[in-house]
């Protein structure tokens, strides 16, 4: 494999406050190839959004990307760039779309203005040329009568349309990487499907790599080729999408899958993972998932598991995934000595 488009190495993003240090992202490494779609999955508070924001250095104080982290992109470490250099990457080589199309657009500017601004700041396009570009982009993302719509303000549009506007805004400069942070969470299901379809189309047409951040394994199954599962600020499993669904290596991943509603499911209640994500100021010792894990055994408390390879491209951060890999379905293994 050639050099990946983006390689994140040992990313640690901590929030420093009098109450303690919140280790929201704690030594995360992964990579994305050119034109590839990678899904990052996890529940609220697992660090996936902070990871996304860290990539463009959009973390605000008291958050800080710690020394020793690296984000390699197109031959440069983004974390060593000056303010002006990183500004030129944002919205240009790496674009981002956000979870809340309702609030992610500026209420006092027309959507055309907001899309045109990208061309103006990165291309130095004239006001008129940038506006034409905005109209083109609106047409590209499937907004009907784009010329009229460009003069609309965000509040005059539906949620789905605003998300299309955000996507249009992200695509103006034809970025090499598109980070989509929960792009469909705030939308209803039919609109979700349309937006995912649009993202897939964009990727085919422009070869854009997509980092898709979501809590929804269903979304990942439809769009991503590779999946990174995050928990407690760490990567707990990484696998090609088929492998992950066929043979999940981490109890947390299994839990997520069981928590997924499926058509034809006859149970009335959804399975849930007991408990909730512990606060990032106080991750448990050893394995961070052990308090909620049905398979936890003494070693999980004593020793933090490493991300161990299972097969090609598949790794999990679990003691059960090590070497002989006993059947995960048997908690009786807890008796095994370390």
């Amino acid at each position, binding site marked *: 494999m050639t050099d990946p488009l983006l390689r994140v190495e040992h990313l640690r993003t901590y929030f420093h406050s009098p109450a303690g240090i919140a280790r929201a992202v704690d030594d995360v490494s992964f990579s994305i190839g050119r034109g590839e779609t990678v899904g990052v999955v996890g529940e609220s508070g697992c660090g996936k959004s902070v990871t996304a*924001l860290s990539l*463009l250095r*959009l973390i*605000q104080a008291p958050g800080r990307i710690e020394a020793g982290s690296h984000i390699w992109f197109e031959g440069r470490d983004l974390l060593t760039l000056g*303010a002006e250099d990183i*500004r*030129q*990457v*944002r*919205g*240009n080589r790496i*674009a*981002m779309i*956000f979870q*809340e199309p309702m*609030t*992610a*657009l*500026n*209420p*006092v*500017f*027309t959507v055309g203005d907001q899309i045109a*601004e*990208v061309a103006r*700041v*990165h291309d130095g396009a004239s006001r008129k040329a940038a506006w034409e570009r905005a109209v083109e982009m609106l047409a590209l993302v499937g907004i009907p009568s784009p010329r009229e719509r460009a003069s609309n*303000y965000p*509040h005059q549009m539906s949620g789905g349309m605003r998300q299309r506007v*955000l996507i249009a*805004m*992200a695509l103006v400069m034809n970025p090499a990487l598109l980070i989509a942070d929960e792009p469909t969470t705030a939308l209803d299901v039919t609109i979700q499907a349309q937006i995912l379809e649009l993202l897939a189309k964009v990727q085919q047409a422009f070869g854009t790599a997509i980092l898709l951040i979501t809590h929804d394994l269903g979304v990942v199954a439809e769009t991503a080729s590779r999946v990174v599962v995050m928990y407690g600020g760490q990567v707990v499993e990484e696998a090609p999408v088929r492998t992950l669904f066929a043979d999940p290596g981490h109890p947390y991943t299994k839990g997520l899958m069981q928590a997924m509603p499926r058509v034809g499911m006859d149970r009335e209640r959804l399975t849930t993972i007991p408990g909730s994500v512990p606060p990032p100021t106080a991750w448990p010792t050893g394995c961070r998932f052990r308090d909620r894990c049905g398979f936890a055994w003494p070693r999980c408390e004593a020793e933090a598991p490493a991300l161990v390879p299972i097969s090609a491209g598949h790794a999990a951060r679990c003691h059960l995934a090590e070497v002989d890999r006993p059947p995960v379905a048997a908690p009786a293994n807890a008796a095994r000595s370390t």
Partner: protein
Amino acid sequence: MIAFLFRRLLQGVAILVTVATVTFVLIHAAPGEPFAGQLDDVRFTPAQQAELRRQRGLDQPLATQYVRYMGRLARGDLDVSLAQQRPVRTILAEALPRTLLLMSAALFGGFALGILVGALQAARAGSWADRVAGRITVALAALPDFWLALTLLLLFSVRLRWFPVSGMVDPTMHEYLSPLGRLRDVAWHLALPATTMALIFAAVVARYQRQALLDVLPDDFVRSARAKGVSERGVVLRHALRNALLPTITLFGMALPALVGGSLFVEFIFAWPGMGRAAVEALSARDYPVVLGTTLVSSALVVVGSIVADLLAAAADPRLRRG
């Protein structure tokens, strides 16, 4: 839009009628009466005073006087001053432009400075510069305007002699100056009273503006702007400040009446011959028509000010526009 304006103007008329009534009742209920000031003038006998009052209808029952005054008002007649023997309209027409000059200099200067300081503070929130500016603005906002006026007067006029002590023009030289020279003369006289008011406005506005901007900066759309590669300056000035100006615009509308009302103390201290001084003098002379006239003009501007504030807010915030 037209319907909106019409409705607001109708409300305005109702407000003015109420203000005229309340002021009329209050000033007649207050102790003292017109022409009493000239009592110690030996040539001015009680009989003559009574005659003057009779001539002006002040001996009539209050209800009659009220109906008469409102009748005049309906025809746009503000009556004649009791103390100055001139139409109130003429007195206001003289005083109003002077106050407008003073207060517009103060308002625009104050708001511009306040927005700038507040925005800079918010952009560097928590820095020592922000903290120092915060102390200064809270002190200025809390100070009485007459104290600041007197302090500036003592320092810059009396001690340093950089600016004149009082008035709007040089009483002896103004007539002989070239047009440009007259302009400079007025500006020179304007400097201290306008600065006094501007500093106080700026302090209040800066505190509003800082907070408004801090409220907006964590918003998602600000992050979006950063994510698309807008410079930090553009993020703060174009994206955040534009939204954070909305509360300040409301504040501006509320401050507009001061344009006409002037500041009683500041005009008095600097002997600025404007509306504030006219009102103070009229009150002490029990010059009923002038008191009513100044009150009505100020009230009218409150009405207009709130309409202007709404229009400005609609211009700045597309969500407030109709249709």
